[in-house]
């Protein structure tokens, strides 16, 4: 099944508030990791959906597979989340990159999504002159029926 089907971009009921520095970290990570997918945790405050820190994780997929998929072991994620909790940071969601693909969620992203969680996807495209370039970043949130994800507008904030 194609993962490139157009997605409904009408905004859902929530807005994700992302500190500029956190978004810059996500973009840096996506460019550095190109052509592989990168992944990390969106940390901050769940109340108000505020992301103050992007915590990079290691994509455990390797080689060609890592250009199209990512996976992080559950206990690795749990340990990272406990370390963030010790700093007073909650998990608001997760981010990952789509190298040479749009910032739309894929069928795999939908199947693997948790409710009540923001999923930021950043599209990073290879470019002959400028190198890996961020072309789009969108946030998505699982609908209650698990049938689709809703587009969640991103509001940039300055802490």
């Amino acid at each position, binding site marked *: 099944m194609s993962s490139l089907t157009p997605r409904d971009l009408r905004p859902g009921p929530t807005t994700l508030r992302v500190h500029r520095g956190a978004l810059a970290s996500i973009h840096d990570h996506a460019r550095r990791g190109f052509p592989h997918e990168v992944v990390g945790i969106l940390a901050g405050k769940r109340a108000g959906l505020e992301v103050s820190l992007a915590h990079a994780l290691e994509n455990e997929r390797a080689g060609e597979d890592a250009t199209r998929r990512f996976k992080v072991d559950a206990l690795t994620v749990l340990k990272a989340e406990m370390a963030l909790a010790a700093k007073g940071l909650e998990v608001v969601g997760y981010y990952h990159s789509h190298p040479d693909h749009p910032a739309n969620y*894929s069928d795999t992203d939908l199947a693997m999504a948790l409710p*009540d969680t923001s999923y930021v996807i950043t599209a990073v495209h290879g470019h002959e002159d400028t190198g890996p370039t961020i072309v789009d970043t969108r946030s998505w949130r699982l609908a209650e029926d*698990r049938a689709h994800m809703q587009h969640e507008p991103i509001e940039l904030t300055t802490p």
Partner: protein
Amino acid sequence: MAVEITIPTALRAYTDKQAVVSVEAGTVDEALQALTTTHPGLAKHLRDSSGKLRSFVNVYLGDEDIRFLPEKANTALSGSESLIIVPSIAGGTR
């Protein structure tokens, strides 16, 4: 036996905000069934349409993933153990 199950943050909206849910069960599978009977909103996120645990749902008995226990979800519980549900993070463009 009373078994305590730790619920990941993202799923606590379905357990009245409780981080730990106590259920009566003799096996891991019974504990998970009791959990979704008490909190039915959890079922569709934990299991697929055929009733199997979703691939991103990991259940640990102590520090052991139940998929790697000899009896898997049929592992007996004596009542002093606790279960923890840990989602793994996965996805991608295909």
